[in-house]
């Protein structure tokens, strides 16, 4: 049954946060059907429209819906960990209205039919909008290029071998060159596999004390440095996913200064946690890339402040209990993140690193622009995808309340601030917090 198309809705008494116009001011927003038709500080100065439904935001923030550019969906293939529906519910509860999923499902998204499957399923569910990345190489084996041109035509927003690095330099070179033919980007999991092989956490004192095999920061830095040289000779559009090391950030900063088409994102664990979160072999803190040192964490924050790091993505990676309740070395990597994305990102605001508008920018407009998605804006004519949130209320992360099927949050038990009150997708309220 198709959802009913809403009429005119006036959102009044809001604190508008629009990264496009850099507006941070009290005002209102008017939607009609699936579209924003007006927005501004003085929008309702002449009185409220008689025919519109009125929603009083009571001073809460109204911002573009979050665009999460790195989410692992487990459907098709591992529906016991997450489905498109459970991820959609988690997304809208977290204020995410668009998310881009990795191709590492079963089957792998490396052909046009798989791209269309994801788009069709997500449309049917009608929660957050879902867009896929497609595999950069066939079967994500890192050898033969996938049909990048046809996959891009079918709607793939970028090309990546997911949680596997494109390890072969020649293949990476050709992938960058070939993708540039069609103006699409290659996303890299920046980790030199031969250096990371066998490692389960960041290499250093902590790993030595725990007796765990380490992954040196150099594994990330070498891969980023190598790729930047390949970008220089191919002109290919290159994006570093979840940068976690200070030197990795520095490499990207230099590449950008040289004018190379290089961008990057990071995820909340890398600016909110360090390797100490592993504590006594806590597998929920086993991530890929691994949590790094406090110095690295601070460098990632600095990268977010100076704009080297373009975007923040949740890096949502659902794992079931059987995958995590294991000796540390055997446990799967990854943490769920859709429902904590905003609250953890707001720490950057509460700690004085970014303004509220900058936090929203990194979570919405910046990734939308990287992906060439018409999102991340409250301008008239845009799809009515936004959230209403209060940045102040304190709460404690409790994964048992998550809508996500998996509960493996590295932020389990963390006191945070900021609450999503309402999420709107295409003009329809798809999430409303309990009063």
């Amino acid at each position, binding site marked *: 049954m198709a959802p009913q198309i809403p009429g005119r809705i006036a959102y009044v008494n809001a604190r508008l946060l629009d990264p496009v116009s850099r507006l941070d001011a009290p005002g209102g927003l008017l939607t009609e059907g699936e579209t924003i038709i007006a927005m501004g500080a003085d929008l309702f100065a002449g009185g409220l429209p008689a025919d519109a439904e009125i929603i009083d935001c009571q001073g809460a923030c109204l911002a573009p819906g979050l665009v999460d550019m790195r989410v692992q969906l487990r459907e098709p293939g591992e529906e016991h960990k997450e489905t498109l529906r459970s991820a959609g519910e988690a997304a809208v509860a977290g204020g995410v209205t668009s998310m881009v999923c990795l191709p590492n499902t079963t089957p792998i998204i490396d052909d046009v039919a798989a791209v269309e499957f994801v788009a069709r399923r997500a449309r049917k569910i009608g929660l957050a909008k879902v867009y896929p990345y497609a595999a950069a190489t066939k079967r994500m084996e890192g050898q*033969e290029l996938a049909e990048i041109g*046809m996959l891009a035509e079918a709607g793939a927003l970028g090309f990546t071998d997911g949680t596997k690095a494109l390890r072969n330099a020649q293949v990476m070179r050709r992938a960058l060159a070939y993708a540039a033919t069609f103006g699409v980007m290659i996303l890299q999991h920046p980790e030199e596999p031969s250096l990371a092989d066998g490692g389960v956490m960041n290499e250093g004192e902590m790993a030595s004390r725990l007796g765990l095999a380490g992954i040196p920061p150099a594994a990330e830095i070498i891969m980023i440095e190598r790729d930047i040289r390949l970008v220089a000779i*191919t002109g290919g559009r290159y994006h570093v996913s979840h940068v976690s090391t200070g030197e990795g950030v520095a490499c990207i900063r230099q590449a950008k200064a040289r004018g190379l088409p290089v961008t990057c994102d990071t995820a909340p664990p890398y600016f909110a946690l360090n390797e100490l979160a592993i504590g006594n072999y806590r597998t929920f803190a086993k991530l890929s890339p691994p949590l790094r040192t406090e110095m690295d964490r601070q460098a990632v924050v600095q990268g977010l402040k100076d704009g080297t790091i373009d975007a923040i993505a949740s890096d949502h990676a659902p794992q079931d209990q059987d995958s995590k309740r294991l000796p540390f070395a055997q446990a799967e990597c990854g943490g769920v993140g859709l429902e904590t994305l905003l609250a953890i990102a707001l720490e950057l605001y509460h700690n004085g690193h970014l303004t509220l508008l900058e936090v929203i920018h990194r979570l919405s407009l910046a990734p939308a622009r990287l992906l060439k998605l018409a999102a991340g804006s409250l301008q008239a004519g845009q799809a009515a995808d936004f959230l209403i949130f209060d940045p102040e209320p304190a709460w404690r992360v409790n994964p048992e309340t998550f809508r996500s099927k998996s509960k493996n949050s590295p932020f389990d038990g963390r006191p945070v601030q900021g609450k999503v009150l309402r999420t709107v997708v295409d003009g329809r309220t798809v999430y409303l917090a309990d009063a």
Partner: protein
Amino acid sequence: MTQPSQFTQRHLLGIQGLAPQEISALLDLSDQYVDKNRSADRKMNSLRGKTVINLFFENSTRTRTSFELAGKRLGADVINMQASASSVAKGETLIDTAMTLNAMHIDVLVVRHPDSGAVQLLSEKVNCAVINGGDGAHEHPTQALLDALTIRRRKGHLDGLMVAICGDVLHSRVARSNIHLLNTMGAQVRVVAPRTLLPAQADRLGVEVFHDMRQGLVGVDIVMMLRVQHERMRGNFIPSIREYFHFFGLDYEKLALAKPDALIMHPGPMNRGVEIDSDLADDVERSVIREQVEMGVAVRMACLDVLTANLARNKI
């Protein structure tokens, strides 16, 4: 065909470096041979007593046959040597092979070799004239000449034409020779290919580079398709045949962007349905692919004629 030609080179190793009048001289003479070949009396004896050896280190049917026929039409003795059947298979080096053949007092050596530069190396060691029948990804001068002859006969001239060379430029000696020839003769050249099939700094070769075939074909007079080599189709340079054809295969829809009287060329052998739509390849209104083969014999006759004459003059 008796007066000294403007083409005074001893060998024909490549197009790069030839002057416009040298190219024109070869094309003018080729024109005469086209007429001769179409007449009933097409056997000549101007090269009687001369020996031409086709030394092919790479498989070839059409180029070898074309040279063989050209030599025989002119009355020369033509011998074909396939590398696998010769002493090369026994480990003889390229230069040893050249010296051996040189000792037999031959007049023209036509050489095809998979390595760029091999034909030139060989030419430095022999007393006869050498024609490059294609070396690696470097040059294939007689192909460029026959392409130019085909265009000139259809369009009346080469200068001012817009030519799009489409496909695997990276590995193509045909593309390189054509780029040199067309630029020398005042045509404008575009190359159209995915970035993985273009050589580095392709724009420095005197061409305009396009990655979108639809843009690259707008307003062109000539569409020159290149053969895609199946051994490169396994995901290394391009993902698949179907994707390649979708974006870089020539079909009626893409051709509609070229000039209404644009000609389609292909050096052969064609992969139908990979780089060119099968019906389009056979469309007599647009495709001059058969004509190229005919021009090939005439061009090679002209080259053999001029080079043997130059050789005789140099000996006196």
